[in-house]
């Protein structure tokens, strides 16, 4: 009984055949799924980046503004549309319920997206009918994502980390040409 003291000698009772078989299957399964994790990190083509830096939120915001100004090609709803050189460092900043700027990236080129926030923690969630991609934007930290867009189109960036009462209207755009 589970509610009473076990029989004496429980510690040295051997496993039955069925128990042995099940434990063997379970151990094998666990080892397989574990080793797949590092293997997939090497073999797979989509991994979360592990490159990040500390950064002052004010300075990061200035950097992102300078970047937007330099490569600005238009404006939508007061948010600059930016076409950076192919394969360059690009800066995206979350704050005041906006994702700034609107990036216009070239298909097939690798970009280094620097992601951070000026106010609260935000969830950088790129959504489209075809795929979803989520990363965290934390104030005080620069998260560098190496991204190569493979399909042209317009993608939306929503926020999926609660950031206050404007959380549900926080939406930005990402264009791939």
């Amino acid at each position, binding site marked *: *009984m*589970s*509610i*009473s*003291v*076990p029989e004496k000698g*429980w*510690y040295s*009772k051997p*496993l*039955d055949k069925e*128990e042995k078989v*099940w*434990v063997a299957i*379970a151990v094998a*399964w*666990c*080892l397989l*799924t*574990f080793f797949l*994790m*590092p293997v997939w*990190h090497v073999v797979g083509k*989509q*991994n*979360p980046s*592990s490159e*990040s830096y500390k950064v002052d939120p004010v300075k990061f915001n200035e950097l992102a503004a300078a970047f937007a100004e330099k490569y600005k090609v238009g404006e*939508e*709803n007061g948010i600059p549309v930016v076409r950076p050189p192919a394969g360059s460092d690009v800066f995206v900043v979350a704050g005041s319920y*906006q994702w700034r700027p609107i990036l216009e990236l070239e298909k097939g080129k690798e970009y280094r997206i620097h*992601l951070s926030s000026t106010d*609260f*923690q935000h*969830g950088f*969630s790129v*959504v489209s009918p075809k795929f*979803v*991609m*989520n*990363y*965290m934007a*934390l104030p*005080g*930290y620069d*998260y560098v994502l190496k991204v190569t867009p493979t399909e042209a189109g317009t993608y*939306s960036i929503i926020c*999926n*980390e*609660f*950031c*206050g*009462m404007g*959380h*549900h*209207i*926080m*939406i*930005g*755009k990402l264009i791939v040409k």
Partner: protein
Amino acid sequence: MAQQNFRTCPTTGLKVHLPAEGLIKANAVVAVVAILIGGIAALAVLLTRVPAVHILPADWFYRLLTAHALDMLVVWIIFFEVAGLYFGGAVLLNSRLAAPKVAWFAFLLMVVGAVIVNAIVLMGGADVTFTSYPPLKAHPAYYLGIILFAVGTLTAVGLFFGTLAIAKKEKTYDGSLPMVTFGLMSAAIIAVLTLAHGAAIYIPTFLWSIGVLPSIDPSMYRIIWWGFGHPSQQINVCAMVSVWYLLATLTTGAKPLNEKLCRTAFLLYVLFINVASEHHLLVDPVLSTAHKIVNTSYVMHLAVLASMIHAFAVPAMTEVALRNKGYTKGLFEWLKKAPWGEPGFSAMMLSLFIFGFVGGITGVTFGTEQISIIRHNTWAITGHFHGTVVGGTTLAFMGLTYYVVPLIFRREIISKKAAQIQPYLFGIGVFIMANAMMFAGSYGIPRRHWDITFAGAAFPYSFDPTAMLFMTLAGLGGLLAITGGAIYVLNTVGSVFFGKKIS
């Protein structure tokens, strides 16, 4: 002298320490009150998330979502677990409870903490959701309420360890701890780890909210907070598995086939399950790939091994017990003739199934780096933990309640019929809801989001209509589960106050 403080249970023959019994009752009653409040919040939140209904305004949605999470994940479950610890510590060991007066003080702290937190959330002073990530700041009373609750819980956990020490010293049992007590002890150890992390993060955050500290680093907060937030759910896993063993014994007379194997599984939980806090940080900056893989894999999936052992051991001991009753025809007669009409049995089996197949598997898969990219913070995560903590833990606790009422409150359940169908209603409802949430989440539907139609936003976005369909389906499953929950609360409260007395 001490003998006068005990009664002997006519059903189990256990010696019940009366002060412990009073405390078990008090904690269980508050737990049921919490599930009632949390359930009302659940209904409002659910009906807001179904796009076609959308009843609450934004501020009340986030407020009630915060209250729902706190009352269910923390207040309901922890009060029930404290009742469980006093039961597993004192009653199962035929022992007296250590320092009942201190236990009442702990109870008081927890109640006061829970009331403060609920009040400040409903007054709009803590629109920060359950995780309260800084720099979002709540009213200091919010953090203070949580700290009081945590101090009360830690005191109760300490008294559980004290009770085990007393029982051993006074030789109230001969041999090793019973399986259920051993499992609860694992839960209590994880609770110590959890509460240490809780103190390490909530105390500085409280000091920040009153202006003593200038800021709280967002990344540091996330690392330590999840060292509290995720292990707190592993307490539930250990408590739930202990309740499976308890219910298997109470409903079929089953006994663990190999004590060492089952206890090894609990040991693996204690040692390895808690590093899975990392699951929340896979798409965060700061942490290295090595840290992410070692931690999310529970160090080579050793905690998964533990769950696989329990998932084998509990049905196996049940099968052996039922075969011993003569249901030996073919492979499955025991399963067909099992006491499916016993709410304790059906709740245990459904809990096992939902926890394993809905909550557990998704937890392990979402907890890989690459899948986290597509699932992090989507509604799929909400689906995952409704599979573990609602379909798993809560359902198991509900099943146990049908034994706590007659054995501890000594009242008959007023509606046996309602008790019979309740676990099915609740279990099937949660099953539908959790799965629908996960399908909706796979389209990118975010969690904790008031309006996924983005009305009034700068740019439009429409999710795939299929995702909307799944949200509606989640609403239907949720309504079924809430109906099951309401029946549970009514039947339990009714029985405790008006059930026929058992002498």
